[in-house]
Structures are given as structure tokens and as C-alpha cells.
């Protein structure tokens, strides 16, 4: 479970990226974080992965206060998460296989088991035939999918995706949406930050709408 309580985040320099944000995400739930560029979506996800620390308020994930986590404990938090970054952060000096195997090497998997899992992950995102390809030779959509494969290869219980359909055409965006839904269906908690209204509409799950760092209250339906 993810729970934010009165979270504020002020960056050095004075920008208030999040103001008094409170919400919870249940286990196995799929949630969208929506809002325009600069609304604070990325900041929200970074707080969950302890990439940034809240200025005030508490960020609790599975009973652990992430905001006050000791530095040495942070890697072990991140190993339980699947992170998909806005700029996907692929390594361009190695092929698809070696990109995806990285999280397994960090944990120290046996290499045969690791290879099996990497191929399963690549297969899941439809890139099995490209395992020897370098990221630079992949299309924008393929790079996105490669980043997803790296995020799921260690089978995390929670997937945090930051704008996973940026620079991807509508049809591919829908495919990616289906991919996330399939993870959700096998019991993974999924949080997707997006400004893509089509994707939001396609997924039709609960949305946390941000505007200038605050949560937009849901209007009761009439």
C-alpha cells in the first residue's frame, strides 16, 4: 500500500512542486496520476522511490516511511519497485539483453536463471527478437517497451511508470496501456503518471488529478 499524508515538496530554489498532497493506493490497485506538464507528477513518483525526500508530510510504502529511510536501506526499497523513467534511462553502450539484465545482476542472480527471466520479460513486451539490438537502433516505442522490460524483469510487486507513452503514437499508446493492464491483472500495483488523456480514457481506472502541485478534488457525480 502507498499512502501520502500532507506531503509537501519544495525544491531547492523555492519551487513548490507538491502542496499538501494526501491519498492512498491499495495493493493490487491501478491508479493514474494525471495533470499538465509541471503539475508535479514526476515529483510524486520520485518521492515513492526515495529519489527525492519530502519537505514535510509522510510517504509510507508497505508500512515503511520512505521519506525518512536511511540511505543504506534505499536500494532494498527500490528492488521491490519497478521503475519506468520519463527519459527511460536506457544504457546506450549495451544491447537490449544487457540493459534488461541489470536489475538481476544487482541482486546477484545465477546467470542461467537471469537469462531465462530476461527473455521472458523481453517476450512480454514483444522485443524477444531484438535482444541483441542496441537501444539506439530501436524506435521510440520500442525503447519505451525495453524500459518496461527492465522494470518488470525482477517481478516487482509495484510498478511506477512516469509518462510511459510520451512520444508514442495513439495506437502504440493503447498497446502499452494494455500491457500495464495485464500487469495489473496478475496482481501488480500499478501507478502511471501521464498527461495523455487518451491513455487515461483507455485505462479507465481511478485517477489522481494534480494541478500546480495540489490534488484536484473529485466532483461528486450527478
Amino acid at each position, binding site marked *: 500500500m502507498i499512502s501520502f499524508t500532507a506531503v509537501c515538496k519544495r525544491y531547492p530554489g523555492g519551487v513548490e512542486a507538491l502542496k499538501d498532497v494526501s491519498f492512498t493506493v491499495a495493493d493490487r490497485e491501478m491508479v493514474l496520476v494525471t495533470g499538465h506538464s509541471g503539475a508535479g507528477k514526476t515529483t510524486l513518483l520520485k518521492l515513492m522511490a526515495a529519489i527525492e525526500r519530502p519537505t514535510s508530510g509522510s510517504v509510507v510504502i508497505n508500512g515503511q516511511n520512505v521519506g525518512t529511510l536511511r540511505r543504506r536501506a534505499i536500494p532494498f526499497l527500490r528492488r521491490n519497485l519497478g*521503475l519506468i523513467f520519463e527519459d527511460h534511462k536506457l544504457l546506450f553502450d549495451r544491447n537490449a539483453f544487457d540493459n534488461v539484465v541489470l536489475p538481476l545482476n544487482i541482486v546477484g542472480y545465477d546467470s542461467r536463471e537471469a537469462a531465462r527471466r530476461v527473455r521472458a520479460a523481453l517476450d512480454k513486451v514483444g522485443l524477444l527478437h531484438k535482444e541483441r539490438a542496441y537501444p539506439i537502433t530501436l524506435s521510440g516505442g520500442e525503447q519505451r517497451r525495453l524500459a518496461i522490460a527492465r522494470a518488470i524483469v525482477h517481478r516487482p510487486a509495484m510498478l511506477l511508470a512516469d509518462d510511459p507513452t510520451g512520444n508514442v503514437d495513439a495506437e502504440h499508446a493503447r498497446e502499452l496501456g494494455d500491457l500495464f493492464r495485464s500487469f495489473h491483472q496478475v496482481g501488480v500495483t500499478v501507478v502511471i503518471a501521464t498527461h495523455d488523456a487518451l491513455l487515461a480514457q483507455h485505462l479507465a481506472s481511478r485517477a489522481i488529478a494534480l494541478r500546480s502541485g495540489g490534488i484536484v478534488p473529485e466532483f461528486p457525480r450527478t
Partner: protein
Amino acid sequence: MRTWLTQHARTLAATCARFARSRMASLLNIAVIGIALALPVGGYVILGTLQHLARTHGSTPQLSVFLALDASGDDAAAVRDRLKRHASVLKFSFVPRDQALRELKASAGLADVVDSLQHNPLPDAFVVDARDGGAGNLQNMREEFRKWPKVAHVQLDTAWATRLDALLRLGKLVVLLLAAALGIAMVAVTFNTIRLQILTQREEIEVSRLIGATDPFIRRPFLYYGAVLGAFGGLAAWALVWAGAYVLNHSLTEIGQIYGASLNLRRLTPEESTGIVLFSTWLCWLGAWLSVQQHLVAVDPV
């Protein structure tokens, strides 16, 4: 434990792969470290050889113990007894005053002078060979002997030994300073090499951190690289010294034959060789460690 071992084995394999990939740069690094280490080690070998030569071939250190002019035969016998029992005395010979005068007379151009003397001005004397030729030891023996009854004067020929001793001590100091300076250079070389590696692998480090790599995991390949660099550098230094000694010994043997002495640079013992490689490994590891401490913080996203 298993995963821990695999991680280390994997890092070692990856480190060797990295050496193989950047063969030229790695070889140059190893050469720099090998030469830096070979200089003081070579100096150490030469010093050790000189010391050995000084002990075995140098004129055995001698003391001359002169008795008082009025010493009787019994007094001389008493001194002889004491010398016989003394632990530091290797051997000694007695030079009676008459014999001393005869020798003096025989030596060039002094016959007239000696003949003109009314009576023999020379005392009885013992010439003593010391067991240990260290300058300090000779001084001690001298102090002791001169307190004996009827001993008028003890003269020791330490000038040569003292001078050599001082020279060797100076040489040792030079080698030590050289070793310190080049040790620092070795640390600096590794420090810089690792700094460049961290710079070129910035992205990989950052991504690894973001997906759950611990600090030790990120540090490990760099520390391994440093240690392996040091080990190879140490081996290179050993090989250089060995080759140098081999080449020099060839010509040294010829020179030695001319003077009828056996001149040979001493070999490094297995303990010394292992020590050199271990020390080099440690130094380069230290350089890598310092570099990692300094530069990994800069890549830290949190």
C-alpha cells in the same frame, strides 16, 4: 554467502574483461606502476648487495690494543687471557715490541731513523679482529678495552667502516624517500584512472543506483580494478628488477673475475617478491578507494 561469492567472482571476471577491452591503456598503466615500483626495489637490491659485500669482502675491522711501555710479560699474558675469553673477538695476534721495531725498520726509508734511536719507543700490541664489523660495536669494544690494566691506547680503524656505514645509511634514506614519493605517485595514478572510469560510467552508475544497487556493489568493480592494476604492476616491477639484475650480473661477473672477487646482485627472496606484489596491490587499491570516495558522491542522486 553463495550470491556474495558469485558477485565477487563476477566482478573479478568483469574486471579482467575490462583490462582486455582497454588493452593499451591498461598496459600503459601497468608499465607506469611497474617502473615506479621497480626504482626503489632496484635501489633496495643494490644497497643489500653493497651491504653484503661490505660485510664479507671489506677488510675485517681491526682494533690495535697498545700496552703501556712499562707493561711486563705477565701483564701482556693477562690481556691475552681476557681477549681469548671475549665474545666479540674473532681472533687476535700479538705483536711484541721488538718485532714491531723490526717491521718498522724494514719498511721503506726508515732504517736510519730506527737505528738512531737509543731505545725501542714502541709498546707491545695486540691486533684484534672483531666478530661483528658494525661501527657501533667496534666503538663499544674500544671503550671496554681501554679500561683494562696496562692498556695505554686502543686504536681502531673505523674510518673506513664508519664512512661506508654512513654511505649505506644515506643510500637507505634515499631509497626510502624515493619509495615514498613513487608510492604517492602510484596512488595518484590509480586515483586518476578510476576518476576517468567513473566519469565515463556516470550513466551506468546513476541507473544502477536508481534500480537498487547498493554502494558496495557500485564501488566494487572500481576497487577490483585498482587492486588488479596494483597486482599486475607489482609483477611488472618484479620482472623489471629481475631482468635488470640478470643483465647487470653478466657484466658484474666479468668485472669480479678481474679483481678475483665474486660480484653478484642479490636476488629477491620469495617473501620479498610476494611482499612487493601485495604492497603494490594495496597501494593501488587505496588509490581506487580514495577516488571512489571522492567521485561517487558526485554521482549520487539522493
